[in-house]
């Protein structure tokens, strides 16, 4: 056991040196590292949000709103299909709980044809996977004239996936506008998006920017209705809707349901200033379709007010003075400068497919992060010094061997963390400290074993041999059990807790190498050089 072939010595030393080299960048400031030659490793350990400050926001997509959208669209499709085939129908309704749209066909003669046509609305889920036969909705007959179109779970899952995908794209465009470094935007579970933005200070603004659905609509104000009367009588004309302005107090407007042009037709939006009033505004440009439609609408309605509606709130309702033919325009609505620039970002990034709600938020300010690093560092260093002193007191020279191995172990942890780009959190620092305890435990086991073997009268070399080989199975067993609970932590935990599990796992694995192999190498050379009659242990 104490004999090391040449290649093994080289391998062990190689691993140790590599670990130290990869850990080294962490000793320098980031700016210093940048001026170093390119062939040196540059990766530093990423600091978790709890250490460098930042925002962790977990969003959930409003599932009901999405189903509602889906059913609305489905209802429009049903209406269009039946109209196209001149089939008269009645009782076209949608049911959110059932996730279904139902319709009754008036003439029995058309019933079969209507059923066949509506069945075509159902498409296989997943395109090429069409062979599986799973469709996005089930179309069935109900009674002797009814037809029910019911969304399937697979259909919902598919819609959810694409909605989440679209949300991630949109959020990324919005967060990028903030110009922070390395934001992370990931899908989590079925209907969630996790947004992590390091080093951000104005979290409220970030949340506002992400949370805004950003659905922009240009609609006409109903010139025939008096908003005040409608508010009092609560009788909204059938083709109209009662909407309020965003200011306080909110001003009511009676607005036509029909959407003339929507945000989908925007190609650009930029913040700017009104040339006459100097007020912050947002200028926008339509694509070809939008421009054509907007030109026609403004031509037909000169002298009438139209409303710019964002997420169901009226931003402004100017009167159309002249036809707008150029395909561009501006929105003014007594904005502040940041409001105008955020609105431009929202419009440019496109609308979210459904409302996103924050269900978990954890933000840490930069000052707290810095304090945590400082106190974590201090505690870790004191802890390390205490352990090193204690190990030397308990085992003398062999304690010294263990201490050197311990330092190598810590270097390896940092090396691996830097290499795999893992994140160090405050619990992660505690994990490293716990590793210190576990790593020296291996040496305690070995050294105690050596003492026992010595007492039973074995020679120094034989005692050391026996100490290492007998302690080995115990070390493995005890480390495996710790690893099991660490893996469970990694599997079920999130954020900082996961960071703890990562450092502990790396630490335990590294400790099997350093505490056993590295110390054995040292002991073996020490034996060869000094040929001791008695082991100082």
């Amino acid at each position, binding site marked *: 056991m104490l004999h090391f072939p040449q290649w093994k010595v080289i391998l062990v030393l190689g691993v140790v040196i590599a670990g130290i080299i990869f850990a080294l960048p962490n000793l320098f400031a980031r700016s210093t590292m940048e001026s170093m030659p390119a062939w040196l490793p540059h990766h530093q350990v990423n600091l978790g949000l*709890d250490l460098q400050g930042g925002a962790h926001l977990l969003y959930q997509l409003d599932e009901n709103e999405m189903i509602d959208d889906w059913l609305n669209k489905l209802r429009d499709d049903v209406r269009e299909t039946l109209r196209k085939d001149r089939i008269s129908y009645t009782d076209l309704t949608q049911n959110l709980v059932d996730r279904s749209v139902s319709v009754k066909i008036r003439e029995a003669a058309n019933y079969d044809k209507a059923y066949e046509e509506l069945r075509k609305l159902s498409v296989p889920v997943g395109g090429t996977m069409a062979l599986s036969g799973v469709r996005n909705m089930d179309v069935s007959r109900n009674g002797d004239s009814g037809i029910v179109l019911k969304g399937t779970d697979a259909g919902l899952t598919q819609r959810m996936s694409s909605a989440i995908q679209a949300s991630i794209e949109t959020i990324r465009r919005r967060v990028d506008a903030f110009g922070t470094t390395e934001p992370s935007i990931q899908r989590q579970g079925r209907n969630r998006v996790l947004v992590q933005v390091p080093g951000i200070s104005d*979290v*409220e603004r970030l949340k506002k920017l992400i949370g805004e659905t950003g659905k922009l609509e240009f609609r006409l104000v109903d010139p025939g209705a008096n908003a005040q009367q409608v508010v009092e009588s609560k009788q909204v004309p059938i083709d109209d809707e009662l909407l309020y302005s965003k200011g306080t107090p909110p001003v009511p407007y009676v607005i036509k349901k029909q959407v003339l042009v929507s945000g989908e037709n925007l190609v650009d939006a930029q913040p700017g200033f009104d040339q006459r009033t100097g007020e912050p505004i947002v200028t926008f440009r339509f694509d070809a379709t939008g421009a054509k439609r907007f030109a026609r609408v403004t031509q037909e309605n000169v002298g009438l007010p139209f409303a710019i509606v964002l997420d169901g709130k009226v931003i402004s309702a100017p009167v159309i003075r002249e036809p707008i033919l150029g395909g561009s325009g501006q929105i003014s609505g007594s904005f502040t400068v940041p409001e105008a620039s955020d609105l431009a970002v929202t419009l440019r990034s496109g609308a979210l497919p459904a409302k996103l*709600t*924050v*269900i978990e*938020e*954890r*933000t*840490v*300010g930069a*000052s*707290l992060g810095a*304090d*945590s690093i400082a*106190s*974590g560092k*201090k*505690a870790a260093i*004191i*802890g390390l010094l*205490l*352990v090193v002193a204690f190990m*030397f007191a*308990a*085992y*003398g020279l062999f*304690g010294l061997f263990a201490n050197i191995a311990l330092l190598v172990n810590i270097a390896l942890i940092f090396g691996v963390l830097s290499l795999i780009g893992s994140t160090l959190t*405050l*619990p992660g620092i*505690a994990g490293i400290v*716990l590793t*210190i*305890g*576990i790593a*020296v*435990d291996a040496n*305690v086991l070995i050294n*105690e074993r050596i*003492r*026992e073997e010595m007492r039973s009268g074995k020679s120094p070399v034989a005692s050391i041999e026996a100490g290492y080989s007998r302690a080995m199975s*115990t070390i493995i*067993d*005890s480390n495996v*059990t*710790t*690893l*099991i*609970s660490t893996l*469970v*932590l990694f599997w*079920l*935990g999130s954020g*900082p*807790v996961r960071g*703890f599990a990562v450092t*502990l796992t790396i630490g335990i694995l590294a400790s099997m190498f350093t505490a056993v192999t590295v110390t054995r190498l040292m002991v073996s050379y020490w034996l060869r050089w000094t040929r001791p009659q008695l*082991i*100082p*242990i």
Partner: protein
Amino acid sequence: MFRGFHFIPADTKIGFVRLRTISWVISALLTVVPLLLVWKVGLNFGIDFQGGTLMEIQTKESVADLADIRAKVHGLNLGEVQVQEFGAPNDVLIRIAAQPTEKEQQDSITKVKQVLGDQVDYRRVEVVGPTVSSELIAGGTVAVVVAMIAILIYIWFRFEWQFAVAAIASLVHDVTGTIGLYSALQLEFNLSSIAALLTIIGYSLNDKVVIFDRVRENLRKYRKMPLTELLDLSINETLSRTVLTHVTTFLAMMPFVIVGGEAIHGFALAMCWGIVIGAYSSIYVAAPLQLILGVKRDGGMASAPTRPKAQARARA
């Protein structure tokens, strides 16, 4: 050359298992009292498990005017609100109870920020909505149970079922004992507490395995020794290691309790307590339980003649 102090003499002969009646009483107390505490006093659940909002702020003046902050936040009518000093005189922790909906939960932060203005530094804001908190409760419970089962299977596989049962029983003892500490000191029980519990489970087990290993070895070595004596011998032989290991880990962790900062204080304190209680249960719970359960004498060696279990138990 310096050979190190032998903190624990080599030939201790302490009757740990022999005096088990006393230790049974203590172990029973350590298990039952925490349960009573949790039942009567309850746990101080953090927002992770209860939902709600937590804000840590730092005021510009060197001593925060708690009464003023309390009055301002109470004026918002957000339900139960706690305002307390946190670590330093100008650090304040504000806890707001869970609001009925996710949106109101979000609005509560905006409102607090409005009344406190920008004269304070918002060092930390955490909001956990009702959806997430219920998931975290489920996740945390599953984590502890899954870890226990996985460990049970591993020990069963490596040793005998008696060892596995003894290990799990002592882990339950450690877990209840630690939860009792959370209840007694009213430490906040949150996600990192679950991490602490799982780590204590792993660490404490580490220790049991070392003693089990020695028991197994001695079972093969001293085929005629009565079990009580054999268990005591095994514990005494490993005593030096047990003490040294726990002391080093404790030394490493203790600075976090004292200077590690408020954020990790609870976690570190629970870990330190777990280290102590884990050491206790290795010696006083896991080992005597083996006596009751009656470990087999064949020790897993296929070639050795198997002794009937009843005989081993009769000797004990």
